[in-house]
């Protein structure tokens, strides 16, 4: 176990060392072309070089993550719709040069050419040295000693069997060092990567602001679309029905004395028109804020969804208090959409919904035994859920291999207010 780990660390270390050699080349060329940008030639090569630089940096970030030190990418997002002409190239260069992370990359390349080489090759060097000691001790010392020079291993001159034995012990100590220290050496390199290739506080805040701006405009878009839909539904539905109801009542008024039979028929029409208007309003209210959610809270509202679904739905909810209204609503509509998907697209036989709250995060999960293969695509219901949750910093995780089962995980950070007091 430890052995295979050390072997893997040694290989990764070797890659890091190779990366360190590439660092030298990349540092020199990138610096060269960055300087050339000043006189206008460099900008043709700089974007390509930056791609290579970031690729090497990303590999080192991945190596760091492997050692248990996750390092986020700090780069600013690439500007959208870049022209493929000279102006586009200049804009790309501007984007690269304006990003402090690019300059930190460059500094890292310079330092890594030494640090990466030393730390990366250290595990391999230890292993080699242990091997050398063992081979010497096994007998290679004799021909070496025979030509009169002797051979040092660590602090031991290996020129006799007892010295060879001591060398063998020293070699074993080095081997043990390799076995135990390799992962720590890589971890050291990982912290070096984190120090320069991770986002600075400023970069992190900038990325947070960017995220908030995106999700806020997403939330506003959703809201505007909802309001528009409600307006249209009212306009084409209930409002129109009430107008026709008024017209019918006017006709009743005219017919009342002349033709009671006809008046009665018209009254019946008026009645069914009002029933229809009520039905439409009810549907609309459900879409805005489902009454059962207002009356019973999230857990029961989701149970009601389960009961109303033609599929057998098991609901397990463990919510020790009341969630904020907008969060409840977001989760409710997300679960509703996922249940609809399970029924319509997944052809599921049964569904499990679980909701629980721990450490400031609401976890929701919808699992079905359907055919799987669900994926996020633009304009899909899943994309809608993702956007809905994103406005609360929530995420939707899709695990839906072809052939099923599908597991949809939602995570939403939120505060919980004190436990609900029963109304009765």
């Amino acid at each position: 176990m430890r052995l295979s780990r050390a072997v893997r660390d040694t290989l990764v270390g070797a890659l890091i060392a190779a990366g360190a050699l590439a660092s030298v080349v990349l540092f020199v060329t990138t610096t060269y072309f960055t300087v050339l940008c000043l006189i206008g030639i460099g900008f043709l090569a700089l974007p390509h070089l930056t791609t290579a630089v970031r690729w090497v940096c990303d590999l080192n970030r991945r190596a760091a993550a492997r050692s248990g030190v996750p390092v986020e990418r700090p780069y600013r997002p690439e500007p959208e719709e870049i022209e493929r002409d000279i102006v586009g190239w200049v804009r790309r260069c501007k984007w690269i040069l304006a990003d402090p992370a690019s300059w930190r990359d460059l500094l890292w390349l310079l330092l890594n050419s030494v640090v990466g080489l030393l730390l990366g090759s250290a595990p391999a060097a230890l292993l080699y040295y242990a091997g050398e000691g063992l081979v010497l001790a096994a007998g290679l010392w004799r021909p070496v000693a025979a030509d009169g020079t002797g051979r040092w291993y660590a602090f031991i001159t290996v020129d006799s069997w007892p010295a060879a034995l001591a060398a063998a012990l020293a070699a074993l100590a080095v081997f043990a060092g390799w076995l135990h220290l390799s992962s720590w050496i890589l971890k050291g390199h990982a912290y070096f990567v984190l120090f320069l290739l991770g986002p600075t506080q400023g970069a992190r805040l900038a990325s947070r602001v960017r995220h908030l701006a995106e999700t806020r405009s997403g939330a506003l878009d959703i809201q505007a679309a909802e309001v528009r839909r409600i307006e249209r539904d009212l306009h084409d539905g209930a409002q129109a029905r009430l107008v026709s109801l008024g017209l019918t009542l006017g006709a009743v008024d005219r017919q009342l004395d002349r033709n009671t039979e006809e008046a009665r028929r018209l009254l019946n029409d008026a009645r069914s028109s009002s029933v229809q208007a009520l039905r439409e309003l009810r549907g609309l209210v459900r879409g805005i804020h489902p009454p059962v959610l207002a009356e019973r809270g999230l857990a029961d509202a989701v149970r009601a969804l389960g009961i109303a679904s033609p599929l057998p739905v098991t609901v397990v909810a463990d919510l020790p208090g009341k969630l904020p209204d907008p969060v409840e609503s977001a989760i409710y509509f997300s679960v509703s959409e996922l249940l609809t998907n399970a029924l319509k697209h997944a052809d599921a036989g049964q569904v499990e919904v679980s909701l629980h709250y721990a450490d400031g995060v609401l976890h929701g999960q919808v699992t079905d035994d359907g055919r799987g293969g669900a994926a996020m695509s633009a304009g899909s219901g899943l994309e809608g859920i993702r956007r809905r949750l994103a406005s609360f910093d929530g995420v939707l995780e899709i695990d839906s291999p072809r052939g099923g089962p599908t597991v949809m995980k939602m995570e939403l950070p939120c505060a919980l207010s004190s436990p609900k007091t029963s109304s009765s």
Partner: protein
Amino acid sequence: MRVVLAEDLFLLRQGIIQLLEAYDCEVVAAVDNGADLGRAIAEHRPDVAVVDVRLPPTFTTEGLQAALLARRERPGLPILVLSQHVEQMYARELLADGTGGIGYLLKDSVLDDRQFIDAVRRVAAGGMAMDPTVVAQLMTSHSRDEPLAALTARERTVLELMAEGCSNTAIAQRLTVTEGAAAKHISNIFAKLMLPPSSDNNRRVLAVLAYLNA
């Protein structure tokens, strides 16, 4: 027939009182919140309570809770619950004690006065009056269960109508078949669901619903 009414919207409360009185029902108390409902029922011991689900002060399911509480104190107290929306979950809570005298209808049902009064009378007599959408949902969610799956489509329709509270005659009319044919369907249903025959129509409907609810 003596009725206690709980409805918080003034216009609707007056409308329902007028409607009930037009059909010789005496509204002995009309209240606008859950607490008063409990007191009115204890005081007047009505033949039926007509209750809006959502009442002050919480505007959640105050009316439903108060009605269920009153029913626990007086088992079998006939209750007709009205709501702007119907939820199977609430229907199940109402039906949970397995005794009769339960109605659960959309407020729209007051638009058709004869049908509404019919429902009130049926519930007061210990029968049922369930909203068709609730019945239909109960049916779909149980349609894969063993004994229900044995029913033919026609028999399922008949069962739904029974759950809504239709009499044999009404079922025959709705399906445009003879009353004898309707009765035959019904006895088939009872046989398939293994319910012992009984003379009391409402009790049989209740047994069917209690079964669906299990």
